[in-house]
């Protein structure tokens, strides 16, 4: 009996905390530093990142959809992907990608195994449609790469070493010197008064921190927002093709008739996960428009308006979403805060890809 009472007390407390909104959330915090990658490996990874020889028809590189000049995404609502196809979700920024526990919008890849995440991008038919053995032989045909691999990776180019070099590089693509972090470390002037007001709203009235919490400003969990479908997914034959193939490869039921992106449910096959997507980090968000898994919101103002309305309509919509009653001034303050989440631009120059050279036949 006592235990039941105690349990009831805990539950009641939890309800109170939920009602308070942000109380369960992790406090905002400066982004911790990742273990620094081996600089030689990261430098090799930079070359490979821009290398079109790593895609099936040698037409696209990682940077095609994760362009440093476009916030490390591609700037489009929906990404393009491999020639002859078009993708059905937004290309996410690589900024801070190494901090996630789960990757992709539907979280189907573990953040603990970034090499497999890179591998998936290379081999997926809608991304780079490449064979790792052919990639390795292509790089072996470039003396500069052969030398760099031996120096940085301890041996000649191989599929595994290609993946590991890119993992090292992606580990360097992180926020630096963000105003929010300086502010959290005590530099009061790092946020403008409007941004400070926005930060209060973020943690209070607007309730953003319920999901966008902690150092990454993401709970790394999955929520249904009721975002309207992007009509281009099903009105664009090439996108619909990629969508159907993808759903089929995951074994999603009824994939042929789906006319909505079911998100996490394609991974888990659980009906309650229909329409759930992993909360993205808000760091660098002012550089990564357009927004949401289907790129359907063009500006941060549009995003705040969407939440101010209480999100969209969906049977599984999160109970955390309800109309916020933000004034225009409050909306502007919130946007100002969001704009202070970007650090110094992470600028990486695209190297000029080295050419294939003839090798001595029979000395492989």
């Amino acid at each position, binding site marked *: 009996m006592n235990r039941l009472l105690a349990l009831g007390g805990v539950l009641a407390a939890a309800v109170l905390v939920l009602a308070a909104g942000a109380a369960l959330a992790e406090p905002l915090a400066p982004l911790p530093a990742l273990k620094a990658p081996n600089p030689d490996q990261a430098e090799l990874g930079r070359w490979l990142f821009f290398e079109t*020889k790593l*895609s*099936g*028809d*040698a*037409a696209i590189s990682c940077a095609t959809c994760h362009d440093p000049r476009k916030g490390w995404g591609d700037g489009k609502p929906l990404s393009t992907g*491999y*020639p*002859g*196809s078009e993708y059905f979700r937004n290309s996410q920024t690589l900024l801070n990608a190494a901090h996630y526990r789960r990757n992709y919008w539907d979280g189907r890849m573990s953040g603990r195994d970034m090499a497999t995440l890179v591998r998936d991008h290379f081999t997926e*038919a*809608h991304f780079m*449609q490449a*064979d790792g*053995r*052919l990639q*390795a*032989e*292509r790089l*072996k*045909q470039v003396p500069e790469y052969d030398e760099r691999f031996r120096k940085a990776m301890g041996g000649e180019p191989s599929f595994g070493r290609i993946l590991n070099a890119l993992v090292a590089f992606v580990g360097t693509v992180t926020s630096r010197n963000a105003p929010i972090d300086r502010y959290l470390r005590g530099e009061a002037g790092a946020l403008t008064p409007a941004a400070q007001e926005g930060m209060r709203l973020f943690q209070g009235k607007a309730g953003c921190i319920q999901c966008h919490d902690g150092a990454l400003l993401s709970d790394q969990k999955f929520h249904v927002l009721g975002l309207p479908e992007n009509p281009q997914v*099903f*009105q664009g*034959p*090439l996108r*619909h*093709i*990629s969508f*159907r*193939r993808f759903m*089929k*490869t995951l074994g999603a039921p009824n994939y*042929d008739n789906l006319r909505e992106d079911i998100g996490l449910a394609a991974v888990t096959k659980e009906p309650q996960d229909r329409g759930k997507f992993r909360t993205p980090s808000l760091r660098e968000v002012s550089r990564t428009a357009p927004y949401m898994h289907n790129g359907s919101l063009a500006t941060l103002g549009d995003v705040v308006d969407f939440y101010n309305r209480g999100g969209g309509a969906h049977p599984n919509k999160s109970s955390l979403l309800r109309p916020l009653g933000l004034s225009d001034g409050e909306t502007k303050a919130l946007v100002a805060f969001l704009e202070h989440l970007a650090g110094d631009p992470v600028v990486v120059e695209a190297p000029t890809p080295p050419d*294939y*050279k*003839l*090798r001595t*036949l*029979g*000395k*492989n």
Partner: protein
Amino acid sequence: MRQPRRAIVITLVLGLALGAGLLVGTVTAQSGKPLALGPLPPVPVPRDNPMSSEKVELGRMLFFDPRLSGDASTSCASCHDPQKGWGDGGDVSRGYPGTQHWRNSQTVLNAAHYTKLFWAGEVTSLEGQAVAAATGNVAGNGDPMMMEERLRQIPEYVRRFKAVFGTERPLIGDAWKAIATFERTVVSKAENVPFDRHVKGDARALSDDARRGLALFSAKAGCIQCHSGPLLSDESYHSLGVPKSPVFEEDPLRQITLRYQHVSRGVPEPVYRTADRDLGLYYTTKRDEDRGKFRTPTLRELKYTAPYMHNGVFFTLEEVIDFYDQGGGNEPGKSPLLKPLKLTVQEKKDLLVFLLSLSSDQPITVPAPRLPDYAVLK
């Protein structure tokens, strides 16, 4: 039972046409298969993929459709162009964008009669060839499920697949069946082939030169030891010592593909480290004695299918004849069937005239179809 009887009949016909005894002494191939030359039999059709005109037409469309490749750039016809003898006209094939292939693109003409396809007999059916080529990383580089969903997005294909295969949506395996069915129509017709007309009794079908060439083919030159039967192929594997193709010394993309093939076929590492040529049947068996062996190709329609050999190293039939006249190349493991032939200039000419009589009077072509479009699905 049927094949031997046919062989006997054709042998008799040949004997009557050429004069008694011409073929005697030439039956020396190891396989013991019927060796007699003659018109092709009806195309063999697998029981699980019967012919129909609707399937042929669907297969023709798919044969020309570049959406059956990775980046929607490369159709079967890209490397098997009806205007280029159903090959691609190059010595070594062009391959998928970003790559260069490593072997000569073989003609589709009469491929329906092979029981072993690709230069080293890697597959045993046209259906198997189609999927291997469409998905191979240096050929079509297509993903089967992506290609299937592309077909699903094309209402005319959905209708045609349903009419032909009875399925509610196209299945990629049925695409290969349709393409194979189309290819079974890309065959020589005896009435158009001078040599076949000759065998059927048309006394004017072959010139005197060609008749002398046939006699050489069957005896002194010994071609028939391997180029036997209606297909003019024993479908066995032989090492000829064909000269190495210069492309592997000159083109980095060809070097990449050569090494890639060694890796993907799983050869022992020392073989990969020293790879400098196409090892043919060895990739399948990993037996040293199979190095450099390739499956004998048909000689039919060769007027239209230059250049020749697995690496396209000979651009003319004269070069091919000279090669055999010298007894082939000089690689270890070369077939003992190859010996210097000591052909005279006139004999070489006669042999060439005969070889040309194995081709149709006019090239066999098929017009490219109009391809149906993608549509928005409700």
